[in-house]
């Protein structure tokens, strides 16, 4: 009897590892099609205004070029994400710098640069708004003075749910709205302390090392009409691009084929954006009658594509002097940029995560996504959660300092546990033990010893050291009814050789999709890992298993692969008498016998919620996610008070992820997310100049190198969830949430200064210390509830 192989939980080498270390893995720019042309994008140089005139200089022979204008678009001039407000090409009007206006293509890539320089566009410029505050001020001017000069969209105004300059708003209560309002009133009336705070985060560039790129083809009928289009490229969500193409070309789904090729990093940056570049290349292919490749260069990619939404979170909290939360109001505001893209769903995740892993007797969260004349912000690992969790985890430390308690005491008083309900009213049925998680994380990090020791050492040192932590959770999969709407489907085929192939639209871009899905199938089918293959994500071949986002692949798609595998086994056992506890050879023989008898063998599984999931989109209440992963992250920092440089010197990351499917990959996901989180907190600053990203290159947009990262210690807890294969939950985005607040809390521990805005660069620390008039730290002893690094402003209740 063969030993049941333990593949899930082992760490086999990545499926595509050999190709990657040999340099044989082929990314988009490594591919070429016969007679292929190269495309480029003509972009706006102003933030907002009417296009008055486009001039093509005589120096260039334009007959050699294919030029696509908005008027060439056969279908709708729109890039559909959740709404249809985002033009494929600007038509008469631009709303942000670097907005695509024209597309050009030429057989020679080298000819494009010169051509771009010889196209001149004149504008009638209009004033722009570039921050959340400016956008709010514009709304105020409209309301109070009937001044619509900075309401950014042209007439007829787009139909955004949020009203002028606002894409979307949410209002979420911890219970019945009226009762919660009454409860809040009483809480603020009876509270020992009311603690207020404002927390802000900046934009962050995904900075995948492979820029966005696609190759498009267009096929014609004999009558010369567009029959179909096909786009290959670097992307996360092939079916998103199919959807976008159907509108731009007015073609049915099955005439818009999309193929994902090896993708050199994505992090959310290739979730929504490939719909733009993919549509552009397809339009050039249509008009030029050649395959067209568009590869952005780094400067163009950084300036022209999406980033993480900048945010502002305001807390007002009623607490008892022992640290118990009595009630709170939270306002989350995101800067969505010029078009809606995914802002409403990013805002949704920010709203739901704003409460942190705490019990709030009465809570109201109001949130909104404002429009500005920046290029649209979009998906980036974490998707709104890092922003609002930064607010709540900084605020918990502020509450502690106000009350004279430790950050640990305040959190322990209020942690959610098994059987509690979250702020959306979701009962936590699975075991949740944040008390134990906190104890373990602090022990692993040597937290208490360090707090005591650094306090002594800092007295005599210009290097101030500190430790801080953040406790948080991250919902796995789509929010609320999202997974039910996605209705994901996976196939599992047996090929001629009697071995299986997984068919999913879930894509690999470094996170390990290929590997973990193969592990699930191998484990369930009791076959060697090496025997499992994955079909290339080609929408003409694979079913729609949903987008590769939201930490959903391991848990949701993994579960479907597990179910399809079980179904395949059952078929083989029933139809061709595959023995129980079969060997590899028996499986192959049975599969071949089945194929001989029935032709093909395909198992399929479609998503169904394993337990009834209740979600009310109107009231924003119910079971927000199928499951949450839970974590406590501890950061140790050193702040050099001579150079004002803050450095993270050690990092401990403890998370509960259900079941660790591949320990090496899981650890890698956490380390990578922590690296990006450290960059988010301490290095990566987007410098905007009238809406244009001024530092659009890697020399002055700084991200961590190998020399900048501290030792990262990764620890796991496992509490299997019924929703994932063998208990696994999502892990991809979780590590992005914790580092920034943990690091800022550690910096406050080190310096006594509460920094509430990230990124925090040396010049920011310098300015703050100077403004306090205390050159060397120890400054928040006066009134810790007053925030000095943001504007003093009324927090509206």
């Amino acid at each position, binding site marked *: 009897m063969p030993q049941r192989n333990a593949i899930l939980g082992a760490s086999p080498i990545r499926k595509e590892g050999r190709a990657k*270390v*040999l340099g044989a893995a082929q990314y988009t720019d490594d591919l070429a099609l016969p007679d292929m042309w190269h495309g480029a994008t003509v972009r706006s140089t102003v933030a907002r205004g009417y296009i008055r005139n486009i001039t093509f200089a005589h120096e260039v022979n334009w007959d050699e070029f294919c030029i696509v204008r908005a008027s060439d678009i056969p279908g709708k001039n729109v890039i559909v994400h959740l709404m249809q407000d985002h033009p494929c090409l600007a038509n008469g009007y631009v709303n942000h710098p670097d907005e695509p206006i024209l597309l050009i293509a030429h057989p020679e890539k080298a000819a494009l640069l010169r051509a771009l320089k010889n196209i001149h566009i004149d504008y009638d410029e209009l004033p722009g708004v570039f921050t959340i505050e400016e956008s709010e001020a514009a709304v105020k001017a409209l309301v109070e003075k009937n001044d619509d000069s900075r309401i950014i969209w042209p007439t007829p105004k787009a139909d955004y749910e949020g009203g002028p300059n606002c894409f979307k708003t949410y209002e979420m209560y911890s219970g019945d709205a009226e009762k919660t309002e009454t409860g809040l009133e009483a809480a603020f009336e009876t509270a020992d302390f009311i603690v207020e705070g404002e927390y802000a985060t900046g934009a962050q560039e995904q900075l995948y*090392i492979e820029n966005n790129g696609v190759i498009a083809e267009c096929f014609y009928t004999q009558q010369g009409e567009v029959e179909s289009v096909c786009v290959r490229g670097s992307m996360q969500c092939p079916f998103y691009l199919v959807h976008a193409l159907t509108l731009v070309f007015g073609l049915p789904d099955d005439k818009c084929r999309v193929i994902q090729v090896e993708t050199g990093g994505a992090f959310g940056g290739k979730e929504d954006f490939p719909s733009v570049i993919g549509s552009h290349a397809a339009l050039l292919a249509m008009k030029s009658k050649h395959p067209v490749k568009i590869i952005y*260069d780094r400067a163009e990619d950084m300036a022209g594509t999406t980033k993480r939404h900048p945010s502002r979170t305001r807390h007002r909290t009623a607490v008892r002097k022992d640290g118990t939360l009595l009630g709170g109001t939270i306002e989350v505001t995101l800067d969505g940029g010029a078009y809606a893209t995914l802002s409403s769903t990013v805002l949704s995740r920010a709203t739901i995560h704003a409460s942190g892993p705490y019990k709030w007797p009465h809570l109201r969260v109001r949130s909104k996504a404002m429009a500005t004349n920046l290029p649209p912000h979009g998906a980036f690992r974490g998707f709104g959660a890092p922003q609002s969790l930064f607010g709540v985890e900084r605020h918990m430390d502020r509450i502690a300092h106000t009350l004279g308690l430790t950050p640990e005491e305040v959190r322990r008083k209020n942690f959610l546990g098994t059987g509690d309900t979250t702020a959306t009213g979701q009962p936590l049925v699975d075991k949740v033990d944040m008390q134990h998680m906190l104890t373990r994380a602090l022990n692993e990090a040597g937290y208490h010893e360090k707090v005591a020791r650094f306090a002594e050492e800092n007295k005599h040192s210009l290097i101030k050291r500190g430790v801080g932590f953040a406790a948080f959770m991250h919902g796995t999969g789509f929010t609320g009814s999202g997974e039910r709407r996605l209705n994901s489907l996976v196939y599992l085929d047996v090929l001629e050789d009697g071995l299986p192939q997984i068919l999913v639209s879930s894509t690999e871009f470094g996170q390990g999709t290929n590997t973990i899905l193969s592990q699930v199938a191998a484990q369930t089918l009791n076959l060697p890992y090496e025997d499992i293959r994955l079909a290339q994500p080609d929408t003409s071949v694979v079913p729609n298993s949903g987008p590769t986002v939201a930490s959903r692949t391991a848990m949701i798609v993994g579960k479907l692969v597990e179910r399809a595998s079980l179904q395949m086994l059952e078929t083989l056992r029933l139809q061709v008498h595959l023995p129980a506890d079969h060997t590899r050879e028996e499986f192959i023989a049975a599969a071949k016998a089945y194929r001989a008898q029935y032709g093909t063998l395909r198992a399929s599984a479609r998503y169904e919620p394993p337990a009834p999931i209740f979600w009310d989109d109107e009231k924003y209440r119910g079971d927000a996610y199928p499951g949450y992963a839970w974590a406590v992250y501890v950061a140790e920092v050193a702040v050099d008070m001579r150079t004002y440089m803050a450095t993270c010197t050690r990092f401990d990351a403890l998370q509960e992820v259900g079941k660790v499917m591949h320990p090496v990959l899981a650890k890698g996901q956490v380390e990578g997310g922590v690296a990006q989180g450290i960059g988010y907190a301490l290095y990566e600053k987007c410098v905007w100049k009238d809406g244009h990203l001024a530092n659009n290159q890697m020399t002055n947009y700084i991200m961590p190198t190998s020399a900048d990262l501290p030792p990262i210690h990764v620890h796991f807890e496992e509490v299997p969830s019924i929703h994932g294969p063998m208990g696994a939950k999502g892990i991809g985005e979780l590590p992005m949430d914790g580092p920034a607040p943990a690091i800022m809390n550690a910096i406050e521990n080190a310096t006594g200064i509460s920094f509430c805005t990230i990124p925090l660069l040396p010049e920011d620390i310098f300015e703050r210390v100077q403004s306090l008039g205390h050159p060397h730290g120890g400054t928040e002893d006066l009134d810790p509830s007053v925030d000095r690094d943001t504007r003093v402003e009324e927090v509206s209740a």
Partner: protein
Amino acid sequence: MSHPFDLGPEPDEFAEEEHQLAKSGLNLELSRRRFVQAAGVLSAVATVGLPGPLFGEKPATSGQAVTLKVNGQTQALNVDPRTSLLDALREKLDMTGTKKGCDHGQCGACTVLIDGRRVNSCLTLAVAAEGAEITTIEGLAKSADPKDISELHPVQAAFLQHDGYQCGYCTPGQICSAVAAIEEQKQGALSIVSFHTGNTDHPDLSDDEIRERMSGNICRCGAYPNIVAAVRAASKGATV
């Protein structure tokens, strides 16, 4: 007034200077100085925004013949003299293993070996690499189509075993860079970490040394801990 494209001393002067310094074991210092001189020229050009050939205003009227020796094979090609080694490899020789990340020498994805030394191929003119031994990721493994891990270059094998990559895009550059970094350490080359630690006499490849010496190769996936582990293992002659 000097010509705006004056690149400093004639190449022959460099050769002589390099020869003298190599004898005294200081050639690393020279390459740094060379870099600074070259960087000075580049930034001067950027500042004044010079038009003309450097910025591709005019298509080249005729190509230049150049012979490159890549992975042991000599190949004759005709290039616009402004073509970078990276573009020559990828577009003229169809060797796409070397990747373009930024095209500005900022990310290290395009790292190849020239006479065993690591360079950013996007900052190297193809014509300047004539006569040198160029090694790319495609030339590292022991066989053209390795079927077994033992046929990989030890650094490739270590990256595979230690999961020293995620998306894989920076990986060819990381591996080429690691091959040279290990060799540099064997030759006794120093890094800033050597000076910080005071360990300036043939320092070992400690993790801090590896982190510093590999810091020119950016990995946005953040696979650095595994990259360091792979380089550490490979430097000790192990793959695991």
